[in-house]
């Protein structure tokens, strides 16, 4: 047992924080050193993250590299980390984006440089922490903590309307997550007697499982069969939908699903390039990840009832987001709305509850992080040169910036899911999963419309910005990408190709999580083949026993009440 056997995840999560401390000690005028240290930190973190990703054994236990120590035991909390396939993949994406974000911002950010890098490092820690948390409350803490550095990134280093966008972003997500907190506490209290219950994901899920199965049996049974439920199942019957709704709303805002998506375009438009990249790359996935990990498995019956509704929202999101893109004049807004459309695919794949759909959804999360992240990155380069986001201010850029154009067009193809790029695999699997699922065929057909619209708007934008003659004199002397910018872009392009041509290593790690997710989500589905309990139950490491902590004294004899 080496140090890394038990602490690898801790290292990955807190390394950025350690470097944040280093940065904090530097004088704020040493811009070069601040950048260098942040970059080195992110790179190191990338190395450890990749290590963790490869240590993840697809055929092994569901959660690996677990680490658990007692923490606020009185409240049923523990400090518990662990990775499953999906979390490992998203973790990889997060650490991958880290150094690139730093590189992308070296000239973009010109004031409060030290603070900016501090925010980046802290943000990195919170995102990684949220992904690896195995304790619901711990997840919530990271999930909320994420908001603060992001709020700063948008609010301090954003464009002209940054205050409005930052506040909108903050309040929107806060509304959802506060409701989620209520639901977390509620589900904790109903999940068992004092002493048995716990905020730990495994315990929580296992405690609810039997009740969920009972509830599913009666829900799919004859009318009124649920009236005779008792105990936890009855509670879940009454309050389950509300708790699910609270979770779902919180995550739906984060995703964002239609119609709670309007914070996204504003936040993206105003955010600096780093903010946009992280927002699109990782933060939106917290929503889908939350659905995958918490909302749906914990309340399969309520999720089943809400599935058609949510699926309709997802399809609306796909088509609506794509149509929105056609109406935009602002490039960043267009990319933001395309995120709405892409995330619609992720949600649809999740809601299909088939292994193809869920795998595709997970893969689509990665793809979106890469392709949309890269789009924001590239547009950031353009914005640095021209400081305008309007399509009409560009045109004919391909003539003066050929390398840039090539990179942008490749990423565009990835974004519109041309086969051979990563986007295709995700989209194909999601759509196939949707067709295979119990959702009506119309869902799949409408979602496939996004394929056409996606090409229409992305190519329209490429056309407007890059092709045609140069219509503005300012654009005549734009300089092409420099070495730093090429180095920042290259990993994205390599990944687009690698993930498109050799997706199997990635899919392999997602597959076990998918199987479990589908089994857990189909607990509530009528007619679905039900997995055995031992497949459903979450196996996690138990809390290591510790020395008896000081317990608060209790009164020896209570006040006697006179009868």
């Amino acid at each position: 047992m080496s140090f890394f056997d038990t602490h690898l995840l801790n290292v990955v999560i807190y390394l950025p924080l350690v470097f944040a401390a280093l940065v904090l000690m530097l004088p704020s005028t040493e811009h070069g050193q601040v950048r260098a240290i942040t970059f080195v930190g992110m790179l190191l973190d990338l190395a450890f993250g990749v290590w963790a990703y490869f240590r993840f054994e697809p055929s092994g236990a569901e959660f690996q590299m677990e680490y658990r120590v007692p923490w606020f035991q009185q409240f049923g909390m523990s400090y518990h980390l662990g990775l499953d396939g999906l979390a490992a993949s998203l973790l990889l994406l997060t650490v991958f984006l880290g150094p690139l974000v730093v590189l992308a911002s070296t000239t973009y950010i010109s004031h409060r440089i030290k603070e900016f890098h501090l925010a980046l490092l802290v943000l990195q820690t919170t995102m990684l922490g949220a992904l690896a948390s195995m304790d619901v409350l711990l997840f919530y803490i990271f999930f909320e903590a994420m908001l603060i550095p992001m709020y700063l990134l948008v609010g301090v280093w954003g464009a002209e309307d940054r205050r409005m966008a930052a506040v909108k972003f903050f309040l929107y997500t806060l509304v959802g997550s506060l409701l989620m907190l209520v639901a977390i506490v509620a589900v904790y209290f109903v999940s068992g007697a004092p002493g048995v219950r716990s905020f730990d994901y495994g315990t929580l899920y296992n405690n609810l499982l039997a009740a969920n199965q009972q509830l599913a049996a009666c829900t799919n049974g004859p009318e009124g069969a649920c009236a005779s439920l008792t105990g936890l199942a009855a509670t879940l019957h009454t309050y389950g939908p509300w708790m699910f709704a609270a979770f779902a709303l919180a995550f739906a805002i984060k995703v964002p699903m239609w119609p709670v998506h309007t914070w996204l375009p504003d936040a993206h438009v105003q955010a600096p390039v780093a903010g946009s990249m992280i927002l699109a790359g990782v933060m939106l996935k917290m929503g889908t990840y939350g659905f995958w990990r918490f909302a749906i498995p914990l309340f399969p019956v309520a999720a089943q009832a809400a599935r058609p509704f949510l699926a309709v929202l997802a399809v609306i999101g796909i088509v609506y987001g794509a149509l929105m893109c056609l109406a935009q004049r602002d490039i960043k807004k267009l990319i933001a709305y395309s995120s709405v459309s892409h995330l619609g695919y992720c949600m649809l794949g999740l809601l299909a509850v088939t292994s193809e759909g869920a795998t595709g959804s997970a893969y689509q999360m990665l793809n979106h992080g890469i392709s949309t992240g890269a789009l924001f990155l590239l547009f950031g380069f353009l914005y640095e040169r021209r400081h305008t986001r309007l399509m009409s201010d560009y045109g004919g850029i391909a003539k003066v910036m050929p390398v840039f154009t090539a990179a942008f067009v490749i990423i565009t193809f990835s974004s519109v899911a041309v086969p051979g790029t990563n986007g295709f695999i995700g989209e194909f699997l999601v759509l196939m999963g949707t067709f295979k699922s119990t959702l009506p065929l119309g869902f799949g057909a409408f979602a496939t419309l996004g394929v056409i619209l996606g090409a229409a708007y992305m190519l329209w934008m490429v056309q407007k910005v890059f092709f045609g003659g140069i219509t503005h004199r300012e654009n005549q002397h734009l300089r092409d990408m420099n070495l730093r910018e090429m180095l920042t872009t290259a990993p994205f392009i390599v990944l687009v190709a690698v993930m498109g041509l050799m997706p199997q290593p990635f899919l392999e790690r997602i597959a076990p999580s998918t199987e479990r997710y589908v089994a857990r989500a189909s607990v509530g589905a009528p007619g679905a083949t039900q997995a055995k309990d031992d497949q459903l139950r979450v196996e996690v490491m138990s809390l290591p026993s510790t020395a008896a902590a000081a317990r608060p004294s209790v009164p020896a004899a209570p006040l006697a009440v006179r009868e």
Partner: protein
Amino acid sequence: MVPITYYLLLAAALFCMGMFGVLVRTNALVVFMCVELMLNAVNLTFLAFARMHGDGIGHVSAFFVIAVAAAEAAIGLAIVIAVFRSRGSVNVDDIRTMKH
């Protein structure tokens, strides 16, 4: 042996009188004195219960209350002095600036 109830009743009475004073009197100094009164009522309760359970913890608590009361008195009186300097009055009616 005197039942604990009587001590508690006395404490309750003291507490309510202190509360009455806090709520009704206008002189900030008197208000502070009433707060001291309330604290003492609480102390009395602590001690009464300590006697009832035969547990020393009540005494410790009372000790802490006294310490906190001392701190509170010091700060509070300092504030009164500061306010008096700026406003020339210790009447709470005149000090209504705790609003936006």
